[in-house]
């Protein structure tokens, strides 16, 4: 527990229950506040539907999109690309990261290149890739791969490098082969970092995907927003943004975080508070 | 905070490696942002035709570039006066009613080759 400044510690059970209640509902508060401001602004300022769509319009368009199946189509299209690009990125990032992590000289010589390409990862490749790959799934998959790869790569390399050498050496001394050492020492040891990399990478990948769809106009959620913009349908724009955010949070909290926690806990590896990011 | 300490070594930006790196970075940034502007200002006198040096009222000039202009360059030049067509070739642009201040500013643009009066 943190060191609270209250000199008198009243730990009645009601107080604790109240604390717990506040703790649970706290995350919802800003959303409620924003909602209230939104409703108030719509009422008082009476902006055009274009500038600030009313809450009801946004909810209505969400319902419409869901019913017409458009929402599902776009979400699935986006997620499919995310999945494809991410799997490629994770596999290549893992392989690359482990190889580089094991080989110090290689890591040092490749480092400048990795840093540079990391600096231009993602959307910066868009113009070049549109020229080479055209607009479509290949483009989006490349951009996601690019984003995810560098993150997983760096985290995997870091994780491998940080596995204390003594573990590896002791297993080798007892007669373990290269592959055996890899499986039992290095990979589990690097796992927390790898999983953090996967989790971070997917978050970045999702955002890069939306950016790519907006600018490159393939199909998916980004395109849905982009098309809506052409017709000045701000309600769809806002609806799309909210859905993007919800998917991002859902993906992170309910899919990736549990995977990370459970795997790390299973192996009894040290997980720390930074994971929450 | 037990033992008395020697006075701390004076650490200005110069003494640390990171400080030097920052100064180098700031210098590079300054050159990137202002290098060409400064160069333009330094070479301004060579650019402006002598007869235009002491213009007191609006002048009519020909802006000469030593390359074929992009739309980018046309747009920038047109901001200094009233665009009045080309003077023979595409890289010679006529500008009318260029005020003395705009003329001076025009003479400081690094990628302009010469500014001649319209004869």
């Amino acid at each position, binding site marked *: 527990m943190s060191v609270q400044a209250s000199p008198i510690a009243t730990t009645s059970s009601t107080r604790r229950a109240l604390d717990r209640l506040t703790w649970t509902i706290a995350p919802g508060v800003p959303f409620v506040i924003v909602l209230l401001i939104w409703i108030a602004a719509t009422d008082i300022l009476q902006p055009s539907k274009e500038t600030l769509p009313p809450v009801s319009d946004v909810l209505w368009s969400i319902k419409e999109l869901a019913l017409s199946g458009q929402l599902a189509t776009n979400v699935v299209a986006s997620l499919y690309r995310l999945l494809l690009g991410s799997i490629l990125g994770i596999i290549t990032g893992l392989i690359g990261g482990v190889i580089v992590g094991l080989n110090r000289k290689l890591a040092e010589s490749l480092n400048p*290149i990795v840093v540079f390409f990391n600096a231009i990862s993602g959307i910066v490749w868009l113009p070049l890739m549109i020229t080479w790959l055209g607009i479509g799934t290949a483009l989006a998959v490349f951009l996601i791969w690019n984003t995810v790869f560098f993150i997983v790569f760096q985290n995997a390399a870091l994780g491998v490098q940080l596995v204390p050498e003594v573990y590896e050496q002791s297993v080798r001394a007892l007669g373990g082969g290269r592959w055996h050492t890899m499986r039992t020492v290095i990979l589990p040891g690097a796992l927390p970092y790898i999983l953090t990399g996967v989790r971070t990478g997917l978050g970045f990948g999702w955002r890069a995907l939306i950016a790519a769809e907006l600018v490159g106009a393939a199909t998916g959620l980004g395109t849905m927003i982009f098309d809506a913009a052409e017709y000045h349908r701000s309600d769809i724009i806002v609806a799309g943004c909210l859905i993007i955010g919800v998917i991002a949070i859902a993906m992170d909290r309910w899919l990736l975080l549990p995977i990370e926690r459970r795997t790390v806990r299973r192996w009894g590896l040290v997980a720390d508070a930074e994971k929450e990011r | 905070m037990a033992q008395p300490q020697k006075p701390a070594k004076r650490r200005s930006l110069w003494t640390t490696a990171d400080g030097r790196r920052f100064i180098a970075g700031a210098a*590079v940034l300054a050159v*990137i942002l202002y290098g*060409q502007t400064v160069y333009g200002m330094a070479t301004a006198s060579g650019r402006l035709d002598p007869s235009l040096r002491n213009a007191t009222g609006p002048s009519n000039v020909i802006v000469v570039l030593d390359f074929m202009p992009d739309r980018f*360059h046309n747009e920038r030049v047109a901001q200094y006066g009233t665009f009045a067509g080309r003077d023979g070739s595409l890289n010679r642009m006529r500008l009318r009613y260029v005020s003395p201040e705009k003329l001076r500013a025009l003479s400081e643009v690094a990628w302009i080759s010469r500014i001649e009066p319209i004869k």
Partner: protein
Amino acid sequence: MSVVGAEHVPAARPMPVVTGWAVAARQLRGVKILFPFIVLVAIWWAIQAVGNFPDRVLVSPQRVFDTMVLLVSRGVIAEYVSTSLKIIGIATAISIVIGVPIGFAVGANRYAARSLEGFLRFLQGVSGIAWLPLIIIWFGFTHTTTLAVVIYTLIVPIIFNTMIGARAIPEHYGLALRSLGASRLRLITDVYLPGALPSIVVGLRLGMGYGWRALIAAEMLVRQGGLGDLIFGARTSGQIDRIIGGMIIIGTLYLLIDRLLVQPIENLTIARWGVLRK
């Protein structure tokens, strides 16, 4: 343990003092950094020479270099680079001025911090670019729009990290100073600000990484100058040399800002005030 996001690569060792051996060592290190790039350019050149691709698909390194030199001499690069740098600069300044106080104000209270944390995560999930169409409707195709998107992207990590930094300060520091009679202002300047500063600077560095990318992306849509506009516009006219040249400039500029400006600040701050474990 720090999450390796986009930019967290171990910092280079500080430069050795100027002696004979050390000079040689420094030169060697410069070569070591450049060597992989030389190899890369050589591979690029080879691919282009052998593959004989049409100009609208791939051009040689020489051609890219020539084109870039040309564009620099014609003032194009200077202006586009200036636009991008100015926007990121202003966005950074505004984000710090607004974000740090918010981070402190909210970080002070456990419940407020937990409140805002979830909201910030949500905002981060909806990238600034997703809001871009709406912001274009508000501000049009102007630099204000680009600036708004970059600020949105930059400010979230700054607020986040300010909150973390503020919360990590052990409470007895502040209490000790208060008991000695320090005013509220003193408290801020002598305890909270220095204490949170390392974390804030880390947040700044992260934010600038995200912000730079958001800037390029926004410029591609808003098309009012800037490097994103440069490379996206070059695509329509099939000018691969400009696209590749622009990409190299984008990467190099970011590295310049990050390694020569922001990272030194981070190191100096940590050296001076930090108990931050990297």
